[in-house]
């Protein structure tokens, strides 16, 4: 019996093997990379908030320190969000009639708290602590980006595990002197790697321990 397929068709079989491998590989790499998309991680996406609070205005314009509002950043895992009272220290005197601030005034008047939408939201199985990072020379802007330039709050980094690990494996790239932690204008110097290594030593950062699972997962 003659062969069903002519031998000139063989390329189809060869090609399909490569194609299938390619498609499977492609799917796999999509699967691996999908979480890196800004669409998934939410990088650069401003969320709806009850009041369009501008960090740019308050930090760059008014010169407020991070800790004026985020009071527990040095003492607790949670950096803290200001109570309405904090807003009203100023806004009971300035912009008292601004319609934009009506939700703040209403909250204060009616004693009903504001509901802010979380921008930096880690999965529930990750236990991040602000106080230890701040005390070991990891600055606000390293993770939160140039908050002083953001009219509306956005995520600057993916907060994926690989991103966390990039620093936990080699904090020397990012660590800065303690007195510059809250400095929004700090930029890494040219010899950051060298200075960083010295700071890691000075601040007793035990790098090998930073990748222990139980450092973040409890």
């Amino acid at each position: 019996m003659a062969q069903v397929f002519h031998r000139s068709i063989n390329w189809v079989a060869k090609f399909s093997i490569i194609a299938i491998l390619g498609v499977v590989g492609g799917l796999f790499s999509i699967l691996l990379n999908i979480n890196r998309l800004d669409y998934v991680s939410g990088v650069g996406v401003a969320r709806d908030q009850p009041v369009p609070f501008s960090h740019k205005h308050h930090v760059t314009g008014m010169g407020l320190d991070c800790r004026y509002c985020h009071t527990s950043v040095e003492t607790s895992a949670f950096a803290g969000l200001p109570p309405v009272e904090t807003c009203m220290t100023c806004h009971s005197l300035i912009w008292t009639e601004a319609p934009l601030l009506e939700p703040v005034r209403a909250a204060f008047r009616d004693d009903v708290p504001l509901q802010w939408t979380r921008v930096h939201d880690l999965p529930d199985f990750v236990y991040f602590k602000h106080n230890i990072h701040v005390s070991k020379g990891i600055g606000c802007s390293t993770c939160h980006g140039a908050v002083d330039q953001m009219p509306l709050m956005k995520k600057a980094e993916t907060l994926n595990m690989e991103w966390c690990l990039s620093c936990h494996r080699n904090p020397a790239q990012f660590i800065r002197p303690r007195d510059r932690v809250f400095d929004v204008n700090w930029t890494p110097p040219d010899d950051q790697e060298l200075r960083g290594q010295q700071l890691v030593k000075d601040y007793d950062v035990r790098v090998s321990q930073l990748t222990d699972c139980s450092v973040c997962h409890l």
Partner: protein
Amino acid sequence: MTDLVSTPQLSIDAAPEAGVGDMADARFSRKRLDLPQLRKTLSGQSGQQYWRSLDELAESGEFRQLLEREFPENASEWNEGFERRNFLKLMGASLAFGGLTGCTIQPEEKIVPWVRAPENVIPGRPVYYATAIAVDGAAVGLLAESHMGRPTKLDGNPQHPASLGASHPTVQAAILDLYDPDRSQTVKNAGRISTWGGFISGMAPPLASIQAKKGAGLRILTGSVTSPTLGSQLEGILKSLPEARWHQYDPARGDGAELGAQQAFGESVHTHYDLALADVVLSLDADLFLAGPAAMRYARDFMQRRTQSLHGSTASIPNRLYVAETSPSSTGSIADHRLGLDTGSIEALAAAIAARLGVAPGFTSGAPADWAGSPEWLDAVVDDLAAHRGTSAVIVGAHQSASLHALAHAINETLGNVGHTVHYTAPVDVLPADHAASLRDLVLDMSAGQVELLLILGSNPVYDAPAELKFAAAMDKVAFRVHLGSYEDETSQLCHWHVPQSHFLESWSDLRAYDGSVSVVQPLIRPLYPTQSVHEVIAVVAGASGKPVLDMVKERWAADPLFASDLAFETTWQKALHDGLIPGTALGDKPVQLRPLTMLAGFGRVLDVEEGFELSLRPDPYLGAGSVSNNGWLQETPRPVQKLTWDNAAIVSPATAERLGVTNEQVVTLNAAGGQVDAPIWIVPGQAEGVISTHLGYGRTHSGRVGNGVGFNAAVLRSASGGWSTTDVSVIKTFQQYKLACTQDHQSMEGRDLVRQGTIEHFQQDPRFAHEDFGHEFPAELTLYDQHDFSAPNQWGMAIDLSACMGCNACAVACQSENNIPVVGKEQVLNGREMAWIRIDRYFSDLDKPEILHQPIPCQQCENAPCELVCPVTATSHSEEGLNDMVYNRCVGTRYCSNNCPYKVRRFNFLQYVDRESETLKMGRNPDVTVRARGVMEKCTYCVQRINSARIDAKVANGEGRVGGDAVKTACQQACPTGAIVFGNLTDDQSQVTRLKKSPLNYGILTDLNTKPRTTYLARVKNPNPKIG
């Protein structure tokens, strides 16, 4: 209406049909235990042998199967009625989507900051408040942990005399009651939803009619009351309405202590003991270390003396504990000498001891013959007591007769213990009463139609009163019935008004502890529902409603001479709130005069173990008389010696089982006091011969989703006279079987030398006996494992002192609370899927007169951990500080780690055990610990969340992050009443754990596998009397 008091029937698995032949045997799927053969097996063995259950000893097929399988049969199926084939079909589909689950975009979350921030709260850091819980009515001081206004954990207040920082399972589990979704949430009038305002106006007409009659027809029923504020409120009512009556009935309470004091001293006297000074303690059926409001204190005092003499820097005389008890208890299991005796024999033993010591009570019906049970034991106890005059104590259990209590007072007096180890004070209760009589009087008056308005405050007599009294029927004759309770229970079903009661963490109050010291009960959270406290309901009766409870409590104390002036009040008050104690309230010793004693008829009548039986009723060690039976943590905690969960049983000794011709789980019908129940048999070595013990607190019909229909209600066997044991009982064998969920056969360790035990004498002669007589040492360097770098400044380790462990399970429940461990239910326990991270293995040495040993087993945190090597996804790995980390979100559920774990301490979420629906339960979870989902392995982490926060605080403070040796306490360690569990930093030479690990008694289990466990044990050392062979 009256049908509510009938026994809830056990659902009994129909026994499989079998052909003719050995009827009894063939009808049971479980093979009948051949007890004579077991005895032979035991007698043929040389040296000390310990075994964990009768099935293990008998090497029954069921047991072999349990051993050979990682989890019991069917445990690996992920749902009942769901076969592997179906599973594979579904798996095909789920695998296809499996990889995509990691791609879900997180749902949006809200942050809700305060409008006005409270002082002293740092978001993300817990705050601790001192408060107190009522244990049998009396205070145990607590430190309650609050996360952003939500109480999440209860622990003992180290400054409180009744706890010294320790706790018990019931104390730990009380937090779950607060968040119980089945709690009563609204006022109800005749079954319809109403309001508190509606209740107040509804009460007006009957109250007016009562007031016109100076209170005639008003009856108030409460449990034991020690609260001074409630006391003054009630006294106020009784003063303004002199014809009203206040009755007290606490179903778990024995009246023997109160009546015994009356008999001995002619007045109400409260007794407590100073076991720190006691060299010799004789317990006559007192579960000293687990039952009652002083148990934590007694356990700590006694065991600290013991461990001091073993590991302490200063040598002290080791103390000795003798226990005679009906049913093996926690206390009995750490006794140096223990006898299982029926109630009559215990009394005869006491009479014999009294006679030898020269105490001569009168007897209304002839003195019992000298106790012949164990002359050697009697001689030894008498000699020991006589040799330790002033430093011994004879302590009688709460459920023993008044005469026995009185006799013990006389013995202690003769021994000169009063004022040293035994202290008499004014009563701790506001109004000491014979509860059984008080309830009887109430029912008589109700039946006679003399009660118009009945207020039942926090009790549930329809369920827990002796059925003989026919409480429900008597209630019909009461015109107006009001019930205050946390649940819409059996009693509220029969009341016109039901008012939901606030949890103690929701409302102000005060309580007296066992030594009289008063604690303010401080709320941590506003009531979750519109609930009321007992003070508010009483205020309605007094016509003073509307006043905040805090004001009522403050007014009571502002008027107290202790608070000298108005100016100082607020300062003293704030300090009392902060410390958890009102200073100067402890009751001083009260001089008493012993009267000539006459023992009542029947005293010391020894049970005829050839013919008769004794029925002995007791409150359940965890559920009490049933008020907390909707608490899943307590239901699922294995009972200390029996290891039963989710059921009560008729507990008998092996010999009694032989005499009855019954085997485990065979149902018998018990008849006593006109009541009848079907109870499954559970054979426990160490149980007194002829005594059938059973526990109250089960068989609830209106307790909630957890407690309904669990076990049988033993209250129907109670006698109205208040006795806790009777020989007037009939036992009828049935051929039905009822499955009991017992945890003792699970995760067995094949009888290696896991528990090592010796005597003090042995220890002094050969301090290394725990190594030389047992096991074998291996060169640690012979290993194929990669060696970890353990140079980090903190290295964690644990030492568990087996001398001090009494198996009370405080550690297990504390762990459950701290680590968000789910409850799985009876079916799952039967499948061996209980989730407890720390289990307590219990071993027996003998069938008839066993020694009972306990060994808590948390994760051993092996330095060479077998589990880590086999995980395909590295979900479990080693930390630099020596912890065996477990990453839940990485785990894919292969269960290889559990297979490879020699200690069987890993727990797998076969199903979605954690309740993700009930909103209130979410509030009670520890926010610092991940809530695990289905398909994930979990295990003890040495409370790594506590370690981390201590390390971070240390790093912020001193850079390097070295944590003080004893700075971190694990939840189990913190709860342990006896201090048996010691955890700490091994790099600190001065830490308690380092010192204990240097003890020659220190050994690891299964170290021949070269696992190098970080958790080690100190061999148990007893202090037996050499005169008892």
